[in-house]
């Protein structure tokens, strides 16, 4: 539902990350999204593709959306993190758990080259 505003945030973050590299053109952008981040990958790619046309730094870049790793820790006995969602602590059976990563939405990396240069 809000993929356009997220796409704008990605573009702005990418632009400011390469502000000190004039001529940089991104070819790939990697995003990490959790299962509860509320992001629909197809809508986000579509919004990004359209909006990126106005932004030379990211125009034409591929947007890769990776699943975030979800883990659960126990608030009662402190054990964990355990992989994935849990209903109760595998060690002490407590239902009081903290979930990490489920609503993550993180812009991880930009890949690309400086136009007219080797980039290195």
């Amino acid at each position, binding site marked *: 539902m809000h993929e356009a505003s997220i796409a704008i945030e990605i573009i702005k973050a990418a632009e400011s990350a390469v502000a000190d590299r004039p001529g*940089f053109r991104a070819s790939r952008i990697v995003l990490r999204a959790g299962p509860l981040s*509320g992001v629909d990958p197809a809508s986000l790619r579509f919004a990004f593709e359209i909006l990126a046309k106005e932004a030379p730094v990211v125009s034409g870049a591929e947007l890769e959306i990776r699943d975030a790793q979800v883990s659960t820790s126990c608030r009662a006995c402190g054990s964990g993190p355990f992989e994935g969602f849990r209903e109760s602590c595998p060690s002490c059976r407590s239902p*009081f758990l903290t979930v990490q990563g489920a609503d993550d939405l993180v812009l991880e990396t*930009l890949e*690309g080259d400086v136009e007219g240069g080797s980039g290195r």
Partner: protein
Amino acid sequence: MVEIRIAQKLRRANDEIAAENRSLFSKLGLLVVNVMGSPGSGKTSMLEAIARTGAGLRIAVIEGDLETARDAVRIEKAGMKAVQITTGRACHLDAGMVKQGLEALDLEGLDALVVENVGNLVCPAGFDLGESLRILVSSVAEGDDKAAKYPPMFARADVLVVNKIDLLPHVDFDMERFERDAKAARHDVEIFRISCKTGQGVEDVARRMRDARKAGNTK
């Protein structure tokens, strides 16, 4: 090829304002409740019914809707202070809108601030407002498949209110199935069955809010 690490959280703007809201609320010792649910599930009716119980809580309400101040008028008639936010076309409230709404409210002397979100079972789930308690109002008239079909919303609800139970004899609603699906989305959700029409169960929701206020329930 150059790889640049960014590692930047997105939707940071909303989260930052939500954190500001939350620290203001906790300084004031104010319980802030985000009330969410479909249009017509009975969010406003539940608040009216809570006011009728003489909840022992001084409550103000921020009302979010696309158009009209009808809900704010209903809330004020029920004896609570209200601020209406009309979102135009936006389908949810965000932390910035709540912050703006606060300017029109005197928070001193209040026990609880209720933010009644825009009626919607999808979008409000993604926006932290700075609240300390999330109540999702669902009604038996909507059907018993909603928890299975809209899990992100149910995963974020601390409290699930099943409203309009006075209609149970007239609708095909399998309570067991609904509650099982709701618990699959969030296993520790607290479920209250109520009827705003008859008042059944409303006092239990009011008590839950009083307990949260006493506990200084902050996320």
